[in-house]
């Protein structure tokens, strides 16, 4: 059963890599559904990864063990939220160009994170390797199912959290008044405005959610795969997450599927050496795979028609 075993491992690793993407993509989803493009997801992930690494480290030093990564996770959410506020104020209140501000947030976040890392860790370019991070949690009984059990029911707590959040997001977006209003603001802000809904308020909320989620996404990478933060911890996942939002047609379920798809392409990297045929392919092409795939997905144009109609347009009540 070696093949099945490998297959099971592949699924498992896919879930690991996808988790961060799902978090971030869901964040991007809320922001875009409210009409605000958030190119800064990459920077928000960086902030989250950094905050998680640092706070967890301090928590461990303070004596916490198992609880430490949870502190880090919460810190990441808050730190991501703060950065996203910069984006929100700039683009919503001051109507700056959303794409440019997003790129600026990326540059700024990385600079901040590296500066603070060096500052706090005596000139080191990366945070110390964390002793206590998340470990895989085996769901009793279910995880004993041969091969499949190990693949799916033995995962990091962050994976379970993100699935829950995905489900909650779907519910929130499509079943509650909040979701209805948020979507209205992103599709046709003046129709919301003329029934008394504050476009500004809902867009702020959308962007802030993206800050929290992307922060969590970055934290996931630190706390489940790399165990520290360095300048290259986040390498394009924020942008792939945006592509996942498009590919998933701005629907939480589709976005999860798209993110898993991209996560799979990242997982393949680990399996390059395992098969004869794949050994012939230079490793660089496996590294390229997630990005090439993302590009191809974008070229197919899938999802392009499903964007919220008012996406990217600052709302000016004077020009109703």
């Amino acid at each position, binding site marked *: 059963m070696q093949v099945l075993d490998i297959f099971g491992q592949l699924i498992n690793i896919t879930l690991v890599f996808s988790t961060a993407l799902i978090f971030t993509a869901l964040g991007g989803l809320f922001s875009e559904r409210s009409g605000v493009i958030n190119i800064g997801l990459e920077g928000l992930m960086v902030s989250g990864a950094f905050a998680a690494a640092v706070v967890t480290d301090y928590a461990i030093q303070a004596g916490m063990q198992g609880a430490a990564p949870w502190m880090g996770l919460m810190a990441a959410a808050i730190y991501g939220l703060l950065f996203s506020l910069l984006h929100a104020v700039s683009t919503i209140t001051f109507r700056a*160009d959303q794409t440019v501000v997003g790129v600026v947030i990326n*540059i700024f976040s990385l600079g901040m994170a590296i500066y603070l890392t060096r500052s706090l860790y005596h000139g080191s370019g990366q945070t110390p390797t964390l002793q206590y991070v998340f470990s895989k949690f085996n769901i009793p009984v279910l995880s004993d199912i041969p091969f499949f059990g190990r693949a799916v029911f033995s995962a990091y707590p962050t994976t379970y959290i993100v699935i829950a959040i995905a489900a909650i997001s779907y519910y929130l977006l499509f079943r509650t008044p909040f979701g209805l209003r948020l979507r209205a603001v992103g599709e046709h802000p003046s129709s919301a405005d003329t029934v008394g809904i504050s476009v500004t308020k809902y867009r702020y909320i959308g962007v802030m959610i993206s800050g929290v989620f992307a922060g969590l996404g970055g934290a996931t990478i630190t706390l489940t795969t790399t165990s520290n933060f360095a300048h290259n911890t986040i390498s394009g996942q924020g942008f792939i997450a945006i592509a996942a939002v498009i590919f998933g047609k701005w629907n939480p379920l589709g976005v999860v599927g798209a993110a898993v798809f991209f996560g799979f392409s990242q997982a393949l990297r680990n399996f390059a050496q395992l098969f004869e045929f794949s050994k012939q392919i230079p490793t660089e092409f496996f590294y390229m795979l997630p990005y090439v795939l993302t590009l191809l997905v974008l070229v197919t144009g899938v999802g392009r028609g499903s964007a919220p109609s008012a996406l990217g347009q600052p709302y000016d009540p004077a020009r109703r």
Partner: protein
Amino acid sequence: MGKIIKTFNSSSLLVPFVSILLGLLTGAVFMLAGGYNPIAAYGSLINRIFSSPYNMGETIRAITPLIFTGIAVAFAFRTGLFNIGVEGQFMMGMTGATLVGVLADLPWFIHAPLAVITGAVFGGVWAAIAGYLKAARGVNEVISAIMLNWIALFLSNFLIVRFVVVEGQQKSKPIRESAMVKMDWLVQALDSARMHWGTVVALVCVVIFYLILWRTKLGYELRAVGLSPEAAHYAGMNVKRTMVKSMFISGLFAGLGGVFEMLGVFGYQTVMAATWGYGFDGIAVALLGGNTPVGVFLGAVLFGGLNYGSAGMSFGADVPPEVVRIVIGAIIFFVASHGIVKWMLKPFLMKRANNRKEAA
């Protein structure tokens, strides 16, 4: 996009100037919060740049690639496009130059120009891909360019390993002397600072940037499409084709940046874990410089100086050099959110206006 073009192409100096001040202030605040002395830090930074001929030469060396990438981004902005793929185009430029520089064996007057041109074209084509995807398929040029950045990184690594790698190591064989473009006499004069012809080419490119956009018919079309695609369409211009041409030219500039880092500074290319960051700094330079030739040049000087001088901050004031990234990040945040700057300045500007009224 039209809105950014109008904002950033304005000759108003107030917003950039105030943004620089605010950025430096932000950096100072962070340093104070960390228990550092901002004055000592900024002092060390300036000191590092001017303290010796070597340092001054190296500062010029650090500024050079930013001129290229800044022009690349500014050029694209002028035509309504956000070329965020400069990182990847820069890489492809490096790779093109390295490949020709190592593999070909030609007399210098052919070898060096060939390496330069190859690298530039590699960059241009790489950029044209993103341009084509946008024009023909409507693909968001920001995401596609970022993807292309990473693909360029791995593709470059592959090409280096496949064709020119030194056995058992992660770097390429050295580029032949006949392709290198160091300015040996200047290198000696400045105590081995790595001076090269690329700096001259960069300055020439600033002029070319001006010439193309404001002196040629192509530039006329490019600017029209950037300022008002609807009017350009009315006037009979082919908006889509113009976009691709623009990205190609932009990529040429970006590629040249990479070319000269190879042929003028390093002489070999390593397998890398990440792109170098000159592309993103180029965006900062273009934003600050208002997408004008002189602005980009000055912006490159400022950011290049900040980057190089930052090493001095750790020696002189024990401050992590990355605080300069915060300064740069803050500066462009304020430039991008010019609304915030203007809002902050409102009380001052109104007071001046009132004073004038009263005096009248």
